[in-house]
């Protein structure tokens, strides 16, 4: 093997010369007058009349649904065989995913490809109701503009369409409401001889009692991407409170936040509340759903978590009214999710698209059997009356559900960023490492503030 020869100087000179050219170019760039690097904000007036795309009757509509809602769309297809549909499964914006948002950005750039009907989270409506750039049209079509009759919109539960409403228009139909109630295993509670708590103080005391008397049984879990909504929202913690459309109040030092953090820390230390999530991979195996004595969680825990995932037999699970704090007269509760259906403003078959979205949210055919509690009032009645629901639960949950639906605290706003991101990548890993919630609150505060600022909010802490 010959020893390598050194590269010829000519080559080196060439490389260094081009490097020099590049450097001097950028140096010249630095010297010039410089404009601001901030993005221009789209100034399109949202009040401008909605101009639909050219319509083609009977053209195919593309539907994006998460896997939970997939059977519903398939059911519609089966009952409406004449509608041409292309059904695509995606993550449904769960767990703070921004898949839909990034794809719509892409479609706005390319000028085609938008799905006609999508299932998403309330967070999605915050950006979908605005144009993504000065030249783009907002993705979501204003459904109150001659698409969905006012009568139908009026049929949705009070306040349930609030996340859909911007600038006086309604941009989505709410699939379900997810008011937080206190779920409990009645069979176990009776067996252990416990009273169902009505206040958080009783809940805390019972949790500590369970830890002593029946170690291994759980009164809650905080490890899910949405646990903050079950607990801190219910506690009326001002973590995501819009004071006006551009100002967000984030104050986790508020007493309403610290009281919940303290309570949960005690129960976590006692091992009555787990830092695992009910929805985490390992939970179903160990400890498993049969160890869940109580769970403060949304209305869909009943069918979706206890029945479908934990496979708890019928006649055991019951729901109680949201817990109150001692000394407080009005109860308040949280809300976990509650998906929405949006119709694309670019759809060339608005008729079929709107019809699908309306059917999905209002038809008893699907909603009465849905795993989630319908936002549309007549469908909710049918849901409660459905034997599959009434028979599964140990007690009549109708009153509790209806009562809780009116108690959802309005101080936890639907912001332009998901409230799940900071919770799941800052707070949850800290809890897994054994830190307490109380000591993690400042980090959570910083994470929310950073995220809020990056999407343009002004922060108020008091």
């Amino acid at each position, binding site marked *: 093997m010959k020893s390598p*020869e050194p590269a010829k100087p000519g080559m080196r000179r060439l490389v260094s010369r081009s490097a020099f050219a590049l450097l001097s170019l950028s140096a010249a760039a630095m010297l010039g007058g410089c404009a601001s690097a901030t993005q221009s904000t789209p100034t399109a007036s949202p009040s401008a009349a909605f101009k639909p795309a050219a319509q083609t009757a009977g053209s195919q509509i593309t539907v994006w649904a998460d896997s939970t809602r997939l059977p519903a769309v398939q059911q519609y297809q089966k009952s409406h065989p004449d509608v041409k549909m292309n059904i695509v499964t995606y993550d449904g914006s769960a767990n703070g995913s921004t898949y839909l948002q990034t794809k719509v950005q892409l479609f706005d750039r390319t000028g085609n490809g938008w799905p006609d009907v999508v299932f998403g989270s309330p967070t999605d409506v915050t950006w979908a109701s605005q144009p*993504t750039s000065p030249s783009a049209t907002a993705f979501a079509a204003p459904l109150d503009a001659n698409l969905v009759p006012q009568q139908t919109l009026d049929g949705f539960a009070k306040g349930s369409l609030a996340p859909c409403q911007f600038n006086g228009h309604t941009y989505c139909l709410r699939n379900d409401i997810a008011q937080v109630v206190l779920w409990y295993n009645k069979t176990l509670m009776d067996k252990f001889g416990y009273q169902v708590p009505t206040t958080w103080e009783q809940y805390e005391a019972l949790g500590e009692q369970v830890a002593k008397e029946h170690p291994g049984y759980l009164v809650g879990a905080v490890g899910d991407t949405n646990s903050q909504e079950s607990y801190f929202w219910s506690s009326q913690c001002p973590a995501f409170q819009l004071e006006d459309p551009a100002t967000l109040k984030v104050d986790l030092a508020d007493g309403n936040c610290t009281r919940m953090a303290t309570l949960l820390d005690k129960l976590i230390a006692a091992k009555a509340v787990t830092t695992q999530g009910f929805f*985490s991979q390992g939970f179903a195996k160990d400890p498993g759903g049969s160890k869940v004595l109580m769970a403060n969680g949304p209305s869909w825990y009943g069918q979706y978590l206890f029945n479908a995932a934990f496979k708890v037999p019928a006649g055991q699970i019951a729901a109680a009214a949201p817990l109150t704090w001692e000394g407080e007269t009005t109860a308040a509760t949280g809300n976990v999710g509650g998906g929405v259906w949006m119709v694309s403003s670019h759809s060339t078959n608005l008729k079929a698209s709107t019809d699908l979205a309306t059917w999905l949210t209002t038809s008893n055919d699907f909603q009465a059997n849905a795993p989630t509690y319908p936002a549309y009032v007549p469908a909710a009645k049918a849901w409660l009356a459905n034997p599959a629901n009434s028979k599964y639960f140990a007690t009549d949950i109708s009153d509790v559900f209806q009562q809780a639906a009116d108690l959802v605290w309005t101080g936890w706003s639907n912001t332009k960023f998901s409230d799940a991101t900071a919770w799941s*990548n800052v707070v*949850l890993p800290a809890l897994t490492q054994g830190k307490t919630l109380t000591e993690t609150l400042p980090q959570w505060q910083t994470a929310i503030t950073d995220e809020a600022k990056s999407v343009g909010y002004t922060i108020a802490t008091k």
Partner: protein
Amino acid sequence: MTALNTGHEAVSSVTPVRRRAATRGRAGLAGYLFVSGYAILLLAFGIFPTVYAFFLALTNDRGQFTGLNQFIKVAQDYRFAPAFLNISLYLVMWLLSVVVLTVVVAIVLRSRMRPRLSAIFRFLYYLPGALAGVASVLVWLFMLDPAVSPVSWLLRSLGFADFAAVLSPGDLPVILVLIAFWTGAGGWIVVMYGALNNIPDEVLEAARTDGAGPWKTAWHIQIPMIRKWIAYMAILAFAGGTQLFVEPQMLQTASLGRVSPTWSPNQLAYVFAFQHGDFNGAAAISIFLLALGLICAALLVTRSDLFKVDES
């Protein structure tokens, strides 16, 4: 290839100057035609995007010149420093493990093992390379989940009770190194082995008769002789490491958001572009990465003897 090229440069240098000049015109035109297809692609997907990235990074979305403001803006973003810190930590661990382990393994395979056995080992180490990209991440999601992992006993004994515990932010660089090593190291072991094979047996024999043990031979003869290959590997591994995207992105999905969506600089650029609609900021981040890559490329081209392009 080695044997074939030895005479070529010497002969070509004695080619009469006049004939070269004569053929230059005809072959020159033909040369342009032959490279034209590639040159168009190079312009379109190599040079133009680079220039365009600079243009974007130096302007705002109204097309106004912003100087270094985009760079300052992204560098001040709260996600910028963590992303670059993450990637640096990862790169240090990845480079150390890939350089040390592949070289050691290749040397042992070359000099301490029967050829047949060595071939089997090389093949088995090399095979996971077929599962690069998304597939490797998915496989490792299973490997790292104590609920299904074949080594759950190991994970548990290390104190990882569940998947969430495995995915704590501090462990992420290690996990990504594991994945990268699993898919990439085998290929490099094979390449290093090939490089070692190029060392003539006489050299090793001479060392042995001089009384050098296998470790001494490795340290004083073999490693110096494949030094430039180690440098080549290190630089390519570094350049590849700066572009992490799919791995943390999928871990983010699979961990249900426990991993930051802006863990790596590339992910941050992606978020800037497609979530904030800020392509200029995204380009500025790309330029930071590009600068890293270009420094590597320049180092490799100018400082090492690997890419001598000066044959006449």
